[in-house]
Structures are given as structure tokens and as C-alpha cells.
């Protein structure tokens, strides 16, 4: 089998909640090593799109492929059982807006829980890797602390390290800095920038325009559930194709100009 450089292929995904069509016919691809920032006004379906990728939400239509393998539907064309779904989910790391750390476990245990109990990798190996990841996000001294004792920025760095501990093919970020105090945003973005530089494949839903402009390889602009524009951040930020994108960017003009956040 040929090696896939296309890590993620989202093809014609739609999702509705009752009468509300949240996503309609969204398609995009992510190559290995790419950082895609998903931008758009709130309520445009960004988070739902992200949650459809690992089937936290079940799409109503469309296909999702991870490294050429269909997510959520097995070879027989039936919805996957828990076991198959969980196997594919372990290859997609996820970072949550409100961190979603497991409160009863220490920082180190948070990193080790899924690799040991879901992936069933040897504990000693997982532990060494987890310690290295904590060093990478600058939290080695917090390994025995419980999440409740950490600042928001520290929690989110643990959240990122926890996702990396799964050795995922793809990392999803759902507004990773939206719940943080402004002065704590920077420390999280630094970690994310490093990952982008190292060639981690990432899909990031964010409102950090300066980050998207500098760190994204491509931008996907969603509006009312549709993928309205996709392209290089340079072109999107300097010369957006659609009126909707122009209006959207105007609201963030100050942030982008100042290089703030």
C-alpha cells in the first residue's frame, strides 16, 4: 500500500441538530505535517466539525478518512462498534477548550491513563515518554500535582501533553485558549507553535488570528456551516475572497495588526 501523505480527508460532511443545520457539505484535506486553523464566527459549526472528525458527534452525511481508513463506518458499511471506534480514536488526539483533565488523577497519571489502559502499552515505556512530554511542555515539577492545583495555562499544557502521549497521527484543538486569562494564552501558543514547527499534523479551531497567520499552513473559514474559503493564511488575511470573510476579519483587525495573541 502506498504511504498516505494525506492524513485526514473530510468529504461532504453534514450535521444537523433538529431543525438546525450546523454543517453542510464540508470538505477539506490535511496533509502530513500541516497545521490547519479553522476560523469563523461563533456558531459557524467549527467545534461540531472537529467533533465529527473523531465521531464524538456522528455526522449525518459524508465520509471521514484517517490515513485512508474510514472513521466510524466499517468495511461492511455499518456503524463501527465501540471497540473499532475506540481503536481509531486513539490515533486522533484531542485538546479541549475547558481542558477536560481527569480530576481524580495526578498530572503524570493523566498522561499515562489512556496509553496504559486503552492502548495497552507497557507502563514503564509510557511513563518515560510521559515524563519527557512533561519536560517538553515545561511542567516536570508538576507531575504529582492534581489538575485542580494548576493555573489554566498549565492545565492546557497538560492537556496537550496528554494528547501527545497517545502518539496520535492527528491532533485536534477545540478553541484551546478561549477559556484562558489573556496573560496565560501565550504559554499555550508557544507549545502549539513548537508542535507546528516539528511537523505535527494539527487541526486547530481558534480565535487567535495572529497565531493562525503565523503558524498555520492553511486556513479554513467556516460560515453558517459551510466551508466558505480555504487557502494560505497570507492570502486569507490580506485579501479574502468573500465578503463574509472580510467582515469577519475586520472585527479582529486590531489584534492582527498588533500581532497580539
Amino acid at each position: 500500500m502506498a504511504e498516505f501523505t494525506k492524513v485526514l480527508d473530510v468529504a461532504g460532511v453534514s450535521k444537523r441538530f433538529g431543525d438546525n443545520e450546523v454543517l453542510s457539505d464540508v470538505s477539506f484535506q490535511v496533509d502530513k505535517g500541516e497545521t490547519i486553523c479553522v476560523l469563523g464566527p461563533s456558531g459557524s459549526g467549527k467545534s461540531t466539525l472537529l467533533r465529527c472528525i473523531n465521531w464524538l458527534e456522528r455526522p449525518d452525511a459524508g465520509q471521514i478518512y484517517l490515513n485512508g481508513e474510514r472513521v466510524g463506518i466499517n468495511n461492511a458499511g455499518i456503524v463501527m462498534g465501540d471497540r473499532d471506534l475506540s481503536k481509531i480514536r486513539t490515533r486522533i488526539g484531542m485538546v479541549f477548550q475547558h481542558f477536560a483533565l481527569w480530576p481524580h488523577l495526578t498530572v503524570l497519571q493523566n498522561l499515562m491513563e489512556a496509553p496504559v489502559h486503552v492502548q495497552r502499552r507497557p507502563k514503564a515505556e509510557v511513563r518515560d515518554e510521559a515524563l519527557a512530554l512533561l519536560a517538553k511542555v515545561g511542567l516536570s515539577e508538576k507531575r504529582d500535582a492534581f489538575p485542580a492545583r494548576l493555573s489554566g495555562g498549565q492545565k492546557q499544557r497538560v492537556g496537550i501533553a496528554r494528547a501527545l502521549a497517545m502518539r496520535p497521527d492527528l491532533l485536534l484543538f477545540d478553541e484551546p485558549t478561549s477559556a484562558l486569562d489573556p496573560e496565560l494564552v501565550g504559554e499555550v501558543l508557544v507549545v502549539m507553535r513548537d508542535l507546528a514547527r516539528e511537523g505535527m499534523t494539527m487541526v486547530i479551531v481558534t480565535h487567535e488570528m495572529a497565531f493562525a497567520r503565523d503558524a498555520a499552513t492553511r486556513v479554513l473559514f467556516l460560515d453558517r456551516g459551510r466551508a466558505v474559503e480555504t487557502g494560505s493564511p497570507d492570502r486569507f488575511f490580506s485579501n479574502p475572497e468573500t465578503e463574509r470573510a472580510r467582515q469577519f476579519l475586520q472585527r479582529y483587525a486590531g489584534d492582527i495588526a498588533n500581532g497580539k495573541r
Partner: protein
Amino acid sequence: MIRDFGIVWSERSLLLSGLANTAILSTVSAVVALLLGFVVTPALMSKQPVVSGIARVFVDGMRCVPFLLFAYIIYYGLPSLGLRLDNWTSGLAALTIYNAAYMAEILRGAWVVQPREPIEAGVAFGFSGLRLFRSIILPPLLLSAGPVIGNQMIQIIKDSAFLTIIALPELTHAASSIQSRHYIPFAAFITAVFLYWGLCLVIEAGVSSIGRVADARR
């Protein structure tokens, strides 16, 4: 008076076996009631109106029936329906079923205030089914419900005293046998009170150690 307590002392083996029976009765029914609670709670929260309705009727029903009456029904009432249980089985069943309703309500209360996101993160990280429940959902739930569950255990210990009326040889039963044999009600009953108190202290020590574990994580 001192002499009365001397008589109680001479009957200590009876009292201690009563204490042991009370401890066994309370522990077994608390554990089984908690386990049943884990079955009833999801039923209470079910989106199926029939399932949640039945669970709701059971829980509200139990909570409105005096325990003594419920024990009467199990021991004296059921035989007229053709189900005859001995006093141990009746006592255990009454205490367990009655408290399962309370446990279910306690767990439901703790469940609904648990944040959704950590559970969702568990799913996203590949946890599912029993493993998800055991590793991700249950521990924070028990930590937050721990003190209230401990409180309910104290209630169970006190309720078990009612089972003296169906001749279960528990602590209250032992104390009343001693008093009727020697006519020393004060000494016999006050001794029993202190033994109940001792049991409750053990529970409270357990609760406060759960509390310490929970506080470190809060």
C-alpha cells in the same frame, strides 16, 4: 448502678455477637444497596419515560415508607403472597432494597453535577463501556458522593435496629435480651448506644479520609 454495668460486662459475648451482626448486616446491605444504586441511577436518568417512570416510583415509594413498616411487609406480609423468608434474609432484603432507593438518589445528585467534558475526553481518548465507567466516570463520582454515602451508612446502621422486631440477633436485640433477663434497662441500653456510636465513629473516620482525598483534587 456499677453493679448493673458489671452484669452487662458478664453478658459481653452476647453484646459483641450482636455488634458483629449489626456490622455485618449494615455493611452487606450498604454495599449491595450502593451496587443496586448504580443500576437504578441510570434508570432514573433514562430518556425512556417508562424506564425512568418505574425507577422514579420505586425511589419515591421507598423514601415515603417508614422503614419499620417496610420490614413488616417483607417478613409478615410476603408469606400471605406465598413468599416466606427467614429473618436474616428478610432483614437483609428490607435494609438493602430500602436503602438502594436512597443510594440511587444520592448517586443521581452527584452524577448530574459532574462536568461533561472529562467524560467526553475519556471517549475521545478511546475509553468505552465498563472501562470508561471504571476509570473515568466512577472515581470522581465516588469522591464527590462519598460524604453523603457515609451519612447514609450511618442511617443504615440505625435502621438495622428496627430489625430486632423480626428477632434478628443484632445489637438492639442483644441489649433488650440482657435487660429483660436481668432488669437493667439503663445499663443495657446505654451500652448499646455507645457501641452504635463507636460504629458511627468508624464510618466517620472513613468519610473524612475520603474527604481528604477529594480535597486534594478539588
